[in-house]
């Protein structure tokens, strides 16, 4: 186990190249944006001078090239998104109308399959349950906890503990919970915490992950366990940012804590609340590792992302896998519409 530090040098060199590239790209872009308009401005000035000297009509004063600025600001993002996400999304949509080997067009047959196969319908229902429950439970828990822990003793320690699962990968978290749900037969020594508790209360051990729909709920617990910390930290920060004078004024008006919560706290943290719910909804739609690691979708626990991966990569059913992916795009539409409304309101307000 000798460790040759020198052998690692190329990696650091590469990392350095990466950082240099970073500075070059970002710095270069900003510099360009600074220099180019200045150059244009000078040229315009020169034109103006020349024009006034020759007595020709003044060139029409154009509005500042806002659009061009925006383009430069957006350029790297748009480029990367086109290569990394837009192109794949288009490809996936096309594949969803093709057969397993992506050779022939078969119209909507993959979609027909999706809604006629009982097990897949089950997958769609499960996904719906996930996307309704996770944001709701995780956000409410996070909010409650944020309110409760606010200025309590050990606040930052407690918050760190709640946030801790965020630092664990989904796979790691699933392994942790597999231990919690582990089962040994009646009379055997239990190795799963949950069954140990049941047994010590005089109950019979249960195979938690076997019975639908309880098993889906238990998997959702894992996701909530991971994500509640995120909700809590964001909302707690928002709560702390509520200006003290508003609170003070309300207090002088003699509002009850209940009113305070609904009339002061909730409206003030609304933007943060939206961020949390939207982020959690999307993360939940894409949840994959948890189901894969714990049950791989057996016992009627599968969700779209897991089924999509199995179909496309394990079973070689590119068409069916892609159709499931497209269905994911469709599921996000309500959230998108909600965002559009938000933006409209924001622009008006």
């Amino acid at each position, binding site marked *: 186990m000798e460790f040759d530090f020198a052998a690692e040098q190329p990696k650091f060199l590469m990392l350095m190249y990466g950082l240099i590239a970073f500075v070059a790209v970002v710095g270069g872009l900003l510099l360009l944006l600074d220099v180019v308009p200045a150059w244009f401005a000078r040229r315009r000035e020169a034109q103006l001078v020349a024009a006034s000297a020759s007595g020709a009509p003044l060139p029409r004063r154009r509005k500042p090239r806002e659009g061009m600025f925006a383009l430069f600001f957006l350029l790297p993002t748009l480029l990367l998104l086109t290569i990394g996400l837009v192109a794949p999304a288009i490809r996936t949509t096309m594949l969803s109308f093709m057969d397993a080997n992506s050779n022939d067009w078969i119209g909507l047959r993959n979609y027909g399959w999706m809604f006629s196969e009982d097990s897949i319908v089950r997958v769609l229902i499960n996904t719906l349950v996930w996307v309704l429950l996770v944001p709701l439970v995780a956000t409410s828990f996070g909010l409650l906890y944020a309110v409760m822990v606010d200025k309590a003793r050990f606040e930052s320690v407690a918050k760190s503990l709640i946030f801790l699962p965020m630092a664990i990968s989904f796979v790691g978290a699933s392994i942790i919970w597999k231990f919690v749900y582990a*089962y040994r037969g009646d009379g055997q020594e239990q190795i799963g915490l949950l069954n140990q508790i049941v047994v010590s209360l005089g109950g019979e051990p249960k*195979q938690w992950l*076997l019975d639908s729909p309880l098993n889906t709920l238990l998997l959702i617990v894992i996701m909530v366990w991971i994500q509640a910390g995120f909700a809590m930290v964001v909302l707690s920060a928002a709560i702390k940012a509520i200006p003290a004078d508003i609170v003070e004024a309300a207090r002088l008006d003699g509002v009850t804590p209940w009113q305070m919560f609904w009339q002061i706290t909730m409206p003030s943290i609304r933007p943060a609340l939206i961020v949390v719910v939207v982020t959690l909804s999307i993360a939940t739609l894409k949840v994959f590792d948890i189901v*894969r690691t714990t049950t791989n979708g*057996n*016992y009627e626990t599968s969700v779209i992302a897991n089924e999509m991966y*199995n179909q496309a*990569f*394990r079973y*070689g059913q590119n068409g069916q896998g892609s159709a499931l992916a497209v269905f994911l795009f469709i599921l996000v539409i309500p959230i998108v519409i909600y965002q559009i409304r938000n933006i409209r309101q924001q622009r008006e307000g």
Partner: protein
Amino acid sequence: MAFARSRQAFAIAGVLGLALSATACGTGDDKKSDTAAGSAECAAYEKYGDNDGKKVTIYSSIRDIEADRLAESWKQFEDCTGIEIDHEGSGEFEAQLNVRVDGGNAPDLAFIPQPGLLKRFVDSGKLKPVGADTKKMAEENYPADWLKYSTVNGQFYGAPLGSNVKSFVWYSPKTFKEKGWTVPTSWDELIKLSDQIAATGTKPWCAGIESGEATGWPATDWIEDLMLRTQTPEVYDQWTTHGIPFNDPKVAEALDKAGTILKNEKYVNGGFGGVKSIATTSFQEAGVPITTGKCALHRQASFYANQWPKGTKVAEDGDVFAFYFPAIDASKGKPVLGGGEFVAAFADRPEVQAVQTYLASGEYTNSRAKIGDWVSANNKLDLANVANPIDKLSVQILQDKSTVFRFDGSDLMPAAVGSGTFWKGMVQWINGKDTKTVLDGIEGSWK
């Protein structure tokens, strides 16, 4: 700096002709050195041609210690031919191989354990047929039974490599001796023994089919073993190629026969609970109760030898060992279920074919076997090089003339069935669904 210096030293040593142990220098890019190449040891490798300095990438599902052993097994080949073999193992092998191939980033060689998957790559035109040398070598060294699994439309796409025997029942020789039980040699004796053990209050069988994203596969092995025992090998072949429907009464018969053990509350699941606990018990720990006497019999492949707790002696007179899963009708021969991987090529450069040929050779087989814990159906394999008792037994079974070998059926079927609905169906079956519903469901998914 140290890196640069050692390379320099390496170069100087080469120039001065003092490359005493250049191969042991370990700078990471040992190329063929003149002394090594000229030595007697390397004479055997001359037939692989001159490919000095070339690189061949291999992708497989073999990881950790097993991967180290692989690297060790072809070390001499690398030293003598100058071909650098770059092996990468991944637990996500099947899915990742698809992604890499589709993404235009295929490895040169892949060790594919599923003939079904191999066929899919052939169908999409990605695999290259093997070269003439490899084909000749494979035909000399492997039984025809094995070669047909990697032959698609008359073209041969890769020689077998490692193998395993799945028709084993693990037991504890020590416990058997204490209790006066004897190893059964027929199905009836097996059932009689099970009843005898059950009468003592211990559940005789333990099983577990949970295996993360591959949950269900151990149960499919059970069914395949029973298919081979209740039906003829020809029916088995029809079944795996969809010549008969999956819900054929013959398959139902096999399933029900397996059910007489797996779904028998008196028999299972020793050390874990009732029948349903099979579904959530991980295959890794399923057999472990044998060591504590909570269970007596566990049907699992030869590679289960690696799963026993540390300090467990795996031998005929040890803590645990395995006996051949007996046939129901011994007059029809000795049906054996097994698996293995095939060396398939996505490139046909000479150095790739050289490696392919080498891996099919007797030299390689014995080189790998000497390192340990490995079995192959290669008939050049010298039993003396196989140290591990269970591996020895496997080789004996594989080389036995009366053996009727069949490949793991779920690996032969299309992946959507073989590692999809078949696995899932078995989980449901264990979980209480009846045979007919389960088989109808699997049949419905096979298009």
